[in-house]
């Protein structure tokens, strides 16, 4: 049982189900830097189940300058231990542990260590170790989140083979009203409407949905040979007809509401293309006893759609002008249709489940799926290996992005080159103040070689950026670390709760002008 009072303000965002998922999750942080610590702080506060900090470093003077939780008394002690200690203080419901081993060593020698986590946050890992880890996690379908803050620049990359979302929670979901293709009960109700028999009070309070269904049918039978309006002229003519049925258009809000959304209503019903794509995914066609519940339900959705040519109805209607009784009746019709659809959908799911030999899917889950069916989402990330391998890197895309003025992608290139630099010289450029000037040409040659590998013209990365990054000397500024910690933890919450749509797949923050862009690399 969660702490409803303490978590009240966030439960209003992701609900008890999202909270339960958070509380079940165990998250690993590699390297307790300022960025890593701030990320984890924002996850411990809302109550993840547990965390483990892996860090072979001892607390140094530079940690004190940018990590809020470390003070002088921590100097020389294990950073994993101290960070873990301070984070545990933030929430007594969260279990924290630390591992003082060098993460690179762990990755190379005992990678199965990472199998137990629900998500891994990697910070400041050399490219080779990062690649190895990402491959391992990829095979085990564990999300990896890579985050770096480097001076004024922040970088974030999410990696997971497949991320399923039932509750994408769009900003302004429109109700599925089926005015264009009314279901039987709605049509019958509209058929019964006799506008002439109504007094003026009643006339102005017929819900516009009923009006629209009624008048559309009348218009197409009387004036359009039984066809729905399809051309612009036909639609205009229907609109005139609709308005002409008002006693006094200026005074009848129900008619005004009808006209407001008339162009949308006259669009033929269609299933959103991304939902079609999900239904046509091979995973829905090839079910087995190991299929995820998600894919079983998508397969059931496809069957439902094949039978009815529509998706299950959600059954909600907006707040519209209407007298109470008509409104309640209308609500009832939609509601009953929705629950009939849900029943049918549930029985399809159950028969699929038994035919492939899976355990039953809880009815609450089926209900949730059914309710959100128009907003399903699926993100398939590209792997880091595909991104890092020149043959599969998206060079053309990067070129087009880098050609934009002030593109933030340039920082991605330079940060990749920084890792190359580290690989060659075993230190970071500009790390020692005296060496900044000497390091700039070395870093530049790393940039050049990376760009050559990727077949990107070297002119697309100006020297200024290389100088800027060298000047940062691999440092973390607390303020940027904190901001990136905020962005990263937000995406982690989306991944863990399976609500909202997470970034796909890279995010660059530029603190010099407070801009940020997502890139698909």
């Amino acid at each position, binding site marked *: 049982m969660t702490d*409803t009072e*303490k*978590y*009240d*303000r*966030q439960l209003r*965002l992701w609900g*008890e189900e999202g909270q*339960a998922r958070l509380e079940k999750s165990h998250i690993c942080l590699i390297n307790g830097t300022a960025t890593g610590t*701030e990320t984890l702080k*924002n996850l411990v*506060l*809302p*109550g993840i189940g547990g965390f483990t900090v892996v860090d072979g470093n001892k607390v140094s*003077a530079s940690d004190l*300058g*940018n990590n*809020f939780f470390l*003070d*002088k*008394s921590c100097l020389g002690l294990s950073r994993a231990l101290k960070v873990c200690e301070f984070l545990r*203080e933030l929430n007594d419901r969260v279990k924290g542990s630390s591992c003082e081993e060098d993460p690179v060593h762990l990755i190379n020698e005992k990678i199965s260590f990472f199998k137990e986590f629900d998500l891994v946050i990697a910070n400041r890992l050399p490219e080779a170790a990062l690649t190895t880890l990402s491959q391992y996690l990829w095979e085990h379908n564990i999300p990896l989140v890579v985050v770096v803050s480097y001076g*004024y620049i922040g970088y974030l990359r999410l990696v997971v083979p497949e991320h399923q979302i039932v509750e994408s929670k769009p*900003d*302004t979901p429109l109700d599925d009203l089926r005015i264009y293709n009314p279901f039987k009960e709605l049509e019958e109700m509209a058929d019964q409407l006799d506008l002439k028999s109504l007094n003026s*009070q*009643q006339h102005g309070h017929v819900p516009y949905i009923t009006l629209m269904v009624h008048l559309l049918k009348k218009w197409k039978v009387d004036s359009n040979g039984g066809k729905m309006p399809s051309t612009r002229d036909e639609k205009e003519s229907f609109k005139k007809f609709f308005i002409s049925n008002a006693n006094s258009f200026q005074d009848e809000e129900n008619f005004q509401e009808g006209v407001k959304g008339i162009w949308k209503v006259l669009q033929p019903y269609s299933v959103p293309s991304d939902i079609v794509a999900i239904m046509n995914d091979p995973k829905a066609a090839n079910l087995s006893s190991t299929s995820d519940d998600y894919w079983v339900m998508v397969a059931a959705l496809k069957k439902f759609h094949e039978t009815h040519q529509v998706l299950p109805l959600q059954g909600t209607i907006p707040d519209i002008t209407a*007298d*109470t*009784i008509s409104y309640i009746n209308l609500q009832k019709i939609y509601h009953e249709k929705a629950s009939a659809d849900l029943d049918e959908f549930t029985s399809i799911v159950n028969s699929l489940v038994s035919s492939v030999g899976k355990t039953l899917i*809880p009815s609450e889950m089926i209900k949730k799926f059914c309710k959100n069916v128009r907003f399903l989402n699926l993100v398939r990330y590209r792997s880091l290996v595909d991104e890092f391998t020149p043959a599969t890197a998206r060079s053309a895309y990067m070129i087009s992005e880098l050609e934009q003025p002030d593109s933030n992608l340039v920082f991605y290139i330079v940060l990749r080159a920084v890792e190359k630099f580290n690989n060659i010289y075993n230190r970071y450029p500009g790390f020692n*103040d005296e060496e900044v000037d000497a390091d700039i040409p070395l870093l530049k040659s790393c940039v050049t070689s990376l760009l050559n590998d990727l077949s990107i013209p070297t002119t697309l990365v100006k020297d200024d950026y290389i100088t800027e990054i060298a*000047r*940062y*000397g691999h*440092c973390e*500024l*607390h*303020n*940027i670390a*904190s*901001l*990136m910690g*905020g*962005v990263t*933890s*937000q995406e982690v*919450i989306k991944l863990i709760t399976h609500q*909202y*749509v*997470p*970034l796909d797949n890279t*995010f660059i923050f530029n*603190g010099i*002008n*407070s*801009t*940020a*862009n*997502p890139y698909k690399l």
Partner: protein
Amino acid sequence: MTDNKFQNIIDTLGIDTFEKIRSAKVLVVGAGGIGCELLKNLVLSGFRDIHIIDLDTIDLSNLNRQFLFRKHHIGMSKAKIARESVLKYCNNSDDIKIVAHHADIKTHEFGPNYFKQFNLVMNALDNLSARRHVNRICLSVDIPLIESGTAGFLGQVSVIRKGVTECFECIPKVPPKEFAVCTIRSNPSAPIHCIVWAKMLFGRLFGLADDSNAVTDMDDNIVEGDKDDTDNVIRDELLPLAKQKSYEQWVFHKVFYTDIDRLARMTELWKEKKPPRPLVYDELFSPDGQQTTTTTTTTSNGINSSSGRGLKDQVVMSFQENINMFVESIRKLQVQNEQNGALTWDKDDNLALNFVVSASNIRSHIFNIPLKSKFDIKAMAGNIIPAIATTNAIISGLIVLEAFKVLNNEFDKCKSTYLLKQPSGKRLLLPIDPEKPKSDCYVCSQNFITLKINTKTTTLSQLLNDVLKKNLSFHDPILTVGASLLYEGGDEDLSKEEIEERNKLEQKIIADYKMPDNTILNVEDYLQNFKVSILIIHCETFDEDGKWFDISGKQKDQSTNNNNNHDSNNNNNNNTEDDLDDLEIIENPVDMQIDASSDKSTAKRKEIESETSDSTKKHKLNENNEQ
């Protein structure tokens, strides 16, 4: 040596900026979600002379994001504990000076003179009136202000500088939904109407006496007719009997029987819907106080109670459970009332919340309105805005980046930045250049507004409290017309007689007190260092139900319009004949807010860059956002 740990900052920002940071004196207004993060970021960015002020105390529901507070701090001052925690973590406290005030920013102690000592003010507030207040003072003493707010996954940061950027009040704020009194009292049609009613009932039963609260009159038992028309009046004779039995039975009978019976008899109200049905206490409870029957359970579209872990508060209680809760909460509240005097309603006080939950649900049942869960009612009654750590972290980071620019006097580089829920188009953060000050802003440009009001019925007290204080956020207005002083507030030096005299004055109708149609009223607030002229226009009808006054800004003629000069002293006594425009200004920011649980709230959002998809909007956040 101490600066050593800031070497990274010196390397990245340069020594000049760093020196400015070290010598800057800044004020953080608010020690909540943004305030905590901001204080941490400021200290770790090298700021070392910080004042922080907050009037609030720590609550359990803060702990999911306000990371400087622990359970054992509940009930203590946010500002003081935030200071303590930061200094504890920073260890080398002698280098950092943080002054914490557990106080209301809107008091004389923190007037313009107090503000003058700072290089920069940062707002981390959760309410509109304090934001307006700080905005006015910062403008008056010409101190740069960074304004910010978050709501769920959304957030925004902007820089306000007199004469250079738009001020906080240049853009009229969204009028929160207000309900007509008759909807609340006689004809509810949605759960929110019953919730508003229940809060008013709470005030009536347990709060301070308030003549404007007309929710019910406890001893009035007339159910039909008028008390002056003694022949035709019908009374509920059961009410005095109920009063003798017990307090809770009296209240129950009065609000769910007598008042409902009266409404049900107004047949013209119920032509289109089922009339409300009065409830009889004894039918619901046997004489020993036990419930007799399990009457019908009205379910609603709430969350199914069978769901696995089932958070209790998210389940819609049955009608009978509501009845029981209502009676029990009245009993307990009455005891509290006797012990502690008048109570104020607080969404985090479980007993007070239980009262509103049960009272509103019973009323909903009576009027055939769906019942709601405690969780939902809390959000609607308490105007709760979701809040999480992640958003506050991002916004606080952005505030500090703007602070660097402000200290460097680089106002040309300052941005207003909007944080979106998910990347839209190509952005998650949307930085835009700040707007120029609006030439018709009554705060930073023109100091002139037009007020339409019924001058023949409105009292001075209503003008003062509802219009000037609640709506226009004046703290302590002084009213003059021409050379004559009409009203001055403040209690300090007044004798009892003088106060009585003034109370009498406040009951005067404004038309009878030198403010008839077409008067120019000058209002001044010393604390805010703010002056405005108000043209009063007599008006008897308003286009919306429940509205009884209308405020609009005033456009200067085109020739002066382009002049974005920030000369704000009133030059406006002579332009009364200009046309009025329809600039809307907030109606009633404080009490009734839109349903905060809904993302598609009625918040008026200012669009930008209309070329992209409709989600690329400049989200002008609800000004009451929480952090």
